[in-house]
């Protein structure tokens, strides 16, 4: 349940990059930061993944997809779900943030700005359609546990915002 250290064997990176989050298909699990370690020992790969949220229903699918991708590359594998250290949105890579934005999901702000935005105190979340920050919070909870619902006051586009998790 607890990760000792993060290490991902170089040769496995391209394989793991092919696996995407089933709920956000544009985002690879590597860019999402959910793979905490992946080590080959005698053609057998031990992978540790960590959930974004405790109840994330995508984790089982992600585990199965990783196994399938590794099998195709000739490796047997086992997946372990770990909880510590707990996932944070800081682990989403810059490439991942861009993929989110392109997909229509606003990338997480830093913790302080996130709080202001979710309390409706300040307009900080940028519309993924027109780029305006004249947006409003519709609901703190969105289509999945990790997102909140926003709407743009200028172009009226409704969109998801990926909540900051620290």
């Amino acid at each position: 349940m607890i990760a000792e250290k993060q290490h991902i064997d170089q040769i496995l990176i391209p394989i793991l990059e092919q696996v995407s989050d089933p709920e956000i298909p544009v985002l690879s699990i590597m860019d999402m930061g959910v793979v905490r370690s992946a080590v080959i020992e005698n053609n057998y790969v031990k992978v540790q993944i960590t959930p974004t949220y405790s109840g994330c229903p995508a984790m089982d699918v992600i585990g199965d997809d990783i196994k399938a991708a590794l099998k195709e590359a000739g490796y047997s594998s086992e997946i372990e779900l770990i909880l510590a250290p707990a996932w944070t949105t800081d682990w989403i890579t810059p490439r991942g943030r861009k993929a989110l934005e392109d997909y229509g999901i606003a990338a997480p702000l830093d913790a302080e700005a996130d709080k202001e935005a979710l309390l409706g105190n300040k307009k900080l979340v940028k519309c993924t359609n027109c780029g305006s920050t004249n947006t409003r919070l519709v609901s703190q909870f969105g289509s999945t546990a990790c997102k909140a619902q926003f709407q743009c006051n200028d172009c009226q586009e409704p969109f998801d915002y990926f909540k900051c998790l620290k």
Partner: protein
Amino acid sequence: MKNENLYNYILGIADNSLILGQRLGELTGHGPSLETDIACTNISLDLFGQVRSYYQYAAKIAGDNRTEDDIAMLRKEREYVNVLLVEQPNTDFAYTMTRQFLFDVYHLLYLQELQKSTDLTLSAIAAKSMKEVSYHQRFSSDWMKRLGDGTKESNQKMQNAIDDLWRYTDELFHQTEADIAMVKEGIGVDVTALKEKYHQIVTSILEESTLTIPESKYFQKGGKLGIHTEHMGYILTELQYMQRTYPNMEW
């Protein structure tokens, strides 16, 4: 069982989230608006996710063949040790949010302490859950203020809910045998020490919401010892239906 106190201690934490998660899950497709419906079921999902981590750990401690599902689905009413507060019915949105708020404040304070547990699995689950529960508390506090300090009618409905539910809050701070044993070992949280802070936070948010804590000093208790209100049987009937009707079914 070798580690019976630890096992019971874990159930003491997890059962609250299981039953509250089940209550919130009842709102799937029945929330007062699409957004609140999604919010309540999102919170339910977080709680169920946390419960799985606890029950998996408890199953490991038990050391026999039992699984997380056995623990969740196959106990009898008297074997569930959740507090009475979480099993109270949804009634209306005022009750649903007030129950949530009264539990969230406690839950967050509890997890902040559990994070410091010498048991590394429990501290890992707590650290993970805390991030989620702080969102829950923000959500329910927001609704307390919005409805409490809303219209005359919304204020009255919120006050009714507090007047009814407040009597279940004192039990949150009662210690069970397992609690006492685990606090001694540095694993468990001393709930008695959370009471003052809890009252401070609740009072301050209720004041902002123009609501008041009832004066009555009469409190209900029993859930932690397995003595539940009349609602519990109905909850379990629904929760356990599939496993009881089709034993060992999986999907």
